[in-house]
């Protein structure tokens, strides 16, 4: 198998299907979340998972790592975590009498940043800078990160005391945010049965490798986005800036992320062009964590997801030329 050659979109679609199917073996009843994770992976973005502990955030990340047979590193964010713990540090090697770079937790294909809001802002920004640039600079040297490289960061929205919630500017760097939610009753029962057999994660088989995923991501960059679709994307994002219920709308980076997510959607459907449905598919996941509702909206329980969904529906799609 020539893994560096650009695969066809059909192959990309099949690859994504295999990854998702493998992950679904350990995460029951969360097809949409799995699909979002795969999409973000292929769109070369990063994912933010916000939810209470114990709903499978870590399993999600680890199963993805195993399925693509990539390196998975987990960084548990604590208040005393240093930036160098994340990026790596140069230490003096006595034997060679040279400084030697010890890579931090970020040097992996899939990086699980657990409870990212517990670390100090300085450490957080070290991670986010690396996320944005795909490289780490230390002591005058630049170290490229792995490819594919995806950060899956989790936040616990409940125990907020003594934490440093991600500022808006930082949340903007994540392509999408998902919540796991509790599993459906049958899914939870099924999970108990499966886990009786021991470590479920070990049953996840690699279905591809990191190089194939990187090649797929390159293939997806070739998906064509028509000018009318770009208009549509910008119209939706602009809608968040004008909506009376939002005091902060989405950034231009959001437009970029939305376009990349739409490309993956199109590719997964086997198309080499984007249609408005592709844009709509992940619009809520891509936009909702970047906007801030007004106090009035919060009081009347209009959450960002609902507002973004309304904006998407109200924006006229370019179905007619």
């Amino acid at each position, binding site marked *: 198998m020539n893994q560096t050659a650009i695969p066809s979109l059909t192959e990309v679609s099949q690859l994504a299907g295999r990854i998702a199917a493998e992950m679904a073996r350990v995460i029951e009843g969360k097809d949409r979340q799995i699909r979002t994770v795969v999409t973000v992976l292929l769109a070369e973005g990063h994912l933010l998972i916000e939810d209470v502990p114990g709903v499978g955030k870590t399993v999600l990340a680890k199963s993805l790592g195993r399925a693509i047979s990539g390196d998975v590193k987990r960084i548990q964010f604590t208040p005393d975590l240093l930036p160098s713990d994340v990026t790596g540090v140069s230490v003096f090697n006595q034997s060679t009498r040279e400084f030697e770079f010890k890579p931090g937790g970020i040097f992996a294909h899939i990086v699980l940043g657990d409870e990212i809001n517990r670390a100090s802002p300085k450490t957080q920004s070290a991670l986010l800078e690396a996320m944005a640039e795909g490289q780490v600079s230390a002591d005058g040297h630049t170290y490229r990160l792995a490819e594919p490289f995806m950060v899956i960061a989790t936040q616990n929205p409940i125990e907020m005391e003594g934490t440093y919630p991600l500022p808006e500017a930082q949340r903007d760097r994540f392509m999408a945010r998902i919540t796991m939610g509790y599993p459906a009753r049958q899914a939870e029962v099924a999970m108990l049965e499966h886990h009786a057999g021991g470590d479920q994660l070990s049953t996840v088989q690699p279905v591809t490798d990191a190089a194939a995923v990187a090649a797929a991501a390159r293939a997806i960059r070739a998906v*064509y986005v*028509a000018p*009318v*679709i770009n208009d549509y994307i910008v119209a939706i994002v602009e809608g968040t800036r004008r909506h009376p219920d939002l005091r902060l709308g989405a950034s231009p980076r959001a437009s970029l992320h939305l376009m990349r997510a739409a490309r993956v959607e199109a590719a997964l459907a086997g*198309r*080499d*062009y*984007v*249609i*408005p*449905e592709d844009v709509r598919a992940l619009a809520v996941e891509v936009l909702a964590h970047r906007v801030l509702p007004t106090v009035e909206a919060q009081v009347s329980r209009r959450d960002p997801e609902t507002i973004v969904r309304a904006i998407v529906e*109200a924006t*006229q*799609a*370019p*179905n*007619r*030329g």
Partner: protein
Amino acid sequence: MRFSHHPLTSVVIAAATLLSLMPLAPMVRGSGHLLEAGFVVAASAAVGVGLPLLRSPRLLVVLAQALAVAGVVAWRGLGLAPAAADPLAALAALTADGVTAIRTGAAPVEPVPGIVWLIIVLTALLVVALELLVSALEQPAWAIAPLALVYGVAAITVVTDLSFWYLLPVVAGYVAVLLSATGVAESATGRASRPGAYLASRLQVAVAFGAAALALALVVAPLLPLGDKQPWNSGPDGPIQLSDPTVRLEQDLKRPADSEVLTYRTSDGRPAYLRTVALPELTPSGARLLPMRLSTFGLSQAHTFPGDEVEVMVSMAGVPSEYLPVPFAVDAIDAAGEWSFDPDTLSVVASGPDRLEQTIDLDYTVISTMPSPSREEIEAAGAGSGVLAATSEVPEGLDSRVTAMTAEVVAGADSAGAKALAIQEYLRSGAFEYSLEAPASTGTDAISSFLLDDRSGYCIHFAAAMITMARIEGIPARMAVGFTPGELLEDGSYRVTAHDAHAWPELFLDDLGWVPFEPTPAFDGPPEYTDPAEQPTGSASPSPTPTTSASLEPPTVEPTAAPTPTLRPTAPGQDTDVSVVGWVVAGLSLLVLLALPALIRIALRAWRLRPGQERRAAAAAAWAEVEALFVDVGRDLPDGSPGPVAAAMAADLPQRAAATLREIAHTVEVSQFSRTGTDIGRLPAQVRALRAALLRDATPAVRARALLVPPSLLLAARRVDLGA
């Protein structure tokens, strides 16, 4: 267009129906018929608003409305019909009356029971058809067809001068129905979040539809004979200019050398006054014409009062005249050229291209019903009413002594007829002198001085004086202008010369109609006529024809008589087919109107699938046609891009249709969104194939609706109008 039924839609429909009857105004006198129509629509509206409160199904509501309307129609019909044992026979007789009145009457017709009954039935049919279209079939757009029906018929058949503005109430009613019965406004506002936008879009829709309806009207208007032009009667462009007949009269009388104007022969051999025109108005400056409402239909029923029927064959000399000399009251004309008549005065006016030369050397035949009341009948008659108001107006500035004198003259006469006879007798008495030297004016001053001081004048002064005095006494009167019977020749025909030009008054009496009088005394010298001298002491019936007929004929109603003065070389009895032509044209126009939706739909499809469009535009247009096809067959196409839509529809469609739809969707989508595009050459054929497949799959009713009243038309209109 989404249908959304407003609770008050039935009220709006009722009002729209009444509005659509407005174009009847120039055809039917008075407004009583509107009240009767009001009963009908009120019943429909009451049921239409009331029953839904009981949560009845809409079709049941419409049925109940039809029943209620039928009840009102039967009730009003039996109220209008003459008492009869068999109600059905009574209604049939009423219908026959109405049809006869329409076929023979000149607009505006009197609202006789038969006419009112037909209007009631028409209203009932209209309102039920509207409810059926709007509420049951949910096709409010086609409400225009019944709503425009009355206007179309009025414009085509009866009235020659129907104003374009009569279309406005029809359009207003149509827009109201659309606004109340469609969800256009709501669906258009779905995207707006502010209440102001709601109002704005509602206005937008109203303006758009009003503009569309007006545009449609403007397109249709040239096809309809509006104004005084008719397609089968290509008259001169612009209004007909009529010259002042009194000027001509004076010239004729004072011309030194006499010349022949015409010769005529009557069926009974008796002499006849030939009248050219009547002047209804008497202003302070003299007798005047009023603007005529020229018509070509219903001549025989324009004056339905008793008289002797007489046929007159006339040979004109080389004399040009825009008025045709005919005996009053003319029923039928057989003359070459195009002729119209004024229903009020029964003046016959040339309306052809060379109208001023039409009478030169013309031979024509006229059938008239000449009034010939007996003296007793006149003495018993009261003053008539219901004619042009101008014929009752006493000219301003009249010397008060004239009024006093009139009262003196008519003292002792107890009826209008007796007063008329007294006035005629007074003017014919020796107190007045015939003289051509008098000033030509018939103005108020001239009349006053003629009556009070000079006591000398010629026919127009006697006529104007009698008209003035009659009007003072409340009798409608007007001046007739024409010729005295002329000179009897050896072969039994009569010769009329320029010196026989004459003017005489016509007075409107109850049950007798317009009766000519002769106040000008017999006189040696021009004009010579024998008639007054033959009448017993000048006080007998002054009708221009001697009252030799012993008994009065009942009004000669001839439904098959020529309803038109349009002159063709046929016998008058055969002229009926002209009105048939009118109805056929009306029917054809109605058919065209009904076929309009189908034609528009076909044209729209051809336009969307036309070759030579830019790739993206062609794909979008083809997809718009696909959406329209689905709407036409009553299927809901989900919102979205072609590909997902086709995938979603696949399960509901026959296999072939689904496959074709998928192919179309792929082509359209690729053309719109992909980098490279694709060949769109097969799109039109594919769309037509899809149409065939969808129609095959539809029930016959749905297929018929898709072909005849495609529901997608309004969708297209909304897209275009709102730029959605």
